[in-house]
């Protein structure tokens, strides 16, 4: 496996998402405190930290998935290209088409492989006819490095694929709405090492078109795939910076403890 750290090339691109003073409450529990983050375009950003540190919570704030949890309350400002996504005029439905999401466990719908990928374009009305849709589906499956494995059985159910294939199908499904940002919540935690390697390689390729935010439990994975890393601890964003710097020369003692395996 090639070590991506060696050829790390952080582009000095524009900020895609800016988060300022984000607070999240679950009922009376203050789960996330004063988080400020700038997420760059065409970059892989990794969120690391021990379980329950708020990294998944923050990820779910970025496309307002926390709206679906009745007890959750979000404060602060998160902007996508300068527009506050928590503004009253913003429809989360439209927002989520721009900021796609891939989940921890592969969750293909109980439909055919084709219909899984076509789901997003269909509900958002992105294509004008069947031929266009076919093209989108093929393009996304190719980008997800799944096309060659499934091109002969597009009509068989997506639940019949292996775990790694299912997760790549979910990635294909997520990029079919051509989002600008792709959020991934521990996308490899339910996969074996070989499938993990395939997905990681895919993530690196996706960087050329999307801004990718990945939550991961594995520091090695963060080191392998990301250019920027944010370390969360007990609801605080402790440290955020170049992945290389975080792993080799952390400023905060808590980050160092975590990276060297003393906490978490």
């Amino acid at each position, binding site marked *: 496996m090639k070590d991506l750290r060696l050829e790390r090339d952080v582009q000095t691109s524009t900020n895609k998402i800016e988060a300022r003073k984000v607070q999240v409450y679950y009922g009376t529990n203050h789960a996330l405190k004063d988080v400020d983050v700038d997420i760059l375009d065409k970059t892989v950003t990794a969120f690391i930290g021990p379980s329950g540190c708020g990294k998944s919570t923050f990820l779910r704030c970025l496309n307002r998935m926390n709206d679906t949890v009745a007890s959750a309350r979000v404060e602060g400002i998160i902007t*996508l290209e300068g*527009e506050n*996504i928590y*503004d009253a*005029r*913003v*429809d989360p*439905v*439209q*927002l989520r*088409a*721009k900021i796609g999401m891939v989940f921890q466990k592969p969750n293909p719908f109980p439909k055919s492989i084709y219909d899984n990928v076509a789901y997003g*374009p269909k*509900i*958002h*009305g*992105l*294509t*004008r006819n069947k031929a*266009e849709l076919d*093209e*989108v589906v*093929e*393009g*996304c499956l*190719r*980008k997800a490095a799944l096309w060659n494995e499934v091109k002969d059985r597009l009509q068989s159910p997506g639940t019949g694929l292996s775990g790694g294939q299912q997760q790549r199908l979910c990635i294909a499904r997520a*990029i*079919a*709405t*051509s*989002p*600008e940002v792709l959020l991934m919540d521990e996308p490899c935690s339910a996969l074996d090492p070989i499938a993990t390697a395939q997905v990681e390689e895919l993530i690196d390729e996706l960087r050329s*078109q999307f801004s990718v935010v990945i939550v991961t439990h594995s520091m090695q994975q963060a080191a392998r795939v990301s250019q920027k890393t944010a370390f969360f601890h007990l609801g605080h964003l402790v440290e955020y910076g170049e992945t290389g710097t975080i792993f080799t020369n952390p400023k905060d003692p808590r980050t160092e403890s975590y990276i060297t395996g003393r906490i978490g």
Partner: protein
Amino acid sequence: MTAIDPTGAAGPSSGVTGHSLFAPDQRTNARNASEKRFRAYGVVAITLALLALLWLLISIFSAGLPAFRQTFIEIPVTLDAAVLDKAGHGDPKEMASVTTIGYGKQIAKALAEEVKAKGVDAGTLTDKEIGEMVSEDSAANLRNMVLANPKLLGTTVQFQALANGRIDGYFKGRVTMETAARDKNTSPEKLMLADKLRAAGVVVMKFNPGFLTMTDASDKRPEAAGLGVAIIGSLYMMFVVLCLALPIGVAASVYLEEFAPKNRWTDLIEVNIANLAAVPSIVYGILGLGIFINIGGLPRSAPIVGGLVLTLMTLPRIIIPTRAALKAVPPSIRDAALGVGASKLQTVTHHVLPLAMPGVLTGTIIGLAQALGETAPLLLIGMVAFVKDFPGAPPSGLFDPSSALPVQIYNWTQRGDPGFVERASGAIIVLLAFLIVMNTAAIILRRKYERRW
């Protein structure tokens, strides 16, 4: 150019990307509208279901509540010893030769005298017609009263006679002057007299405890019909069901959940129990008729047969929740007991069953409540017969003919006199009251002892 370039190189022209989030496009508006409609369907469906419930309850209660109030005629009746005890010995056996007709005449006479005494204008009504305003059943009540206490002979008692069903119906709005004019059992004159008597305080309307204690009455006397036999019969059947279904159901559940090997045979038993819970109840009636009555020779209309049939019907409905309650007890408790050397049976009886007991009892009460309201199987085993006498004390009383609440309701709906609709609805209120008590008990039990592991 396609809406999305499959290579992703160029920006799509669609309304999703490259578009301000603050300006929702048409398609999103349409989708949000459809979202609102879909939510509204759900609200409408729930509203319809709840309105149906409300409609049902209002309809039954408005028709049934009047059954708890009854019109009485309060008059002093002189018990003429010369008429009622011709031999003059005060011996109840001899007095029994005077039938209810003899007593009826006494009441009629007393009422006619009362009308005159109060100075009420009876119009063109004859004394006989005035007498018809009293329920025919009152004579039997008076007779029983005298036979039970012969010393009353020769005295004047303040007697509370049931008014005839039409008079009662008039005060409850069921009978009007127009319908009375076409009715050979009453007449507008009688209703007018009833009005005057009510003003004079002779005719009164008040709570009628007899509805719960009296026996059934014949077709023409809805005013005298009560639920006494039906309530006793239902209680007897519930007693049988409780005594049989609870132990058998618990034993079967314990075996299936704790001891049975998992093989095709127990799988079959399991499917079989699930199916039995969904077999139409009337099929259990056919079973009761075929097995308990035709082959077993048990008597028709008897609470024991009803109880047995309802037991078989209730068993699967007890077994299913009981097994769920047993399953909910965590294996660690079994391991702990087995670990200190208890036998498997001791483990179950000392530890698992007591912990599962609230669930078992809740299931049993709900099963009993269902059995209490069940009608169809009881029709087939003859419980629909007209029963005028209370059954004896158990256990032999379990073999006496009896009625049951739901069957009594059905029976009354088949009668011609509209007064029985009120009785049937009233009986439903009684039935629902029992069910509410049972279900509340089940809910309290569940709330109080519910345990999550």
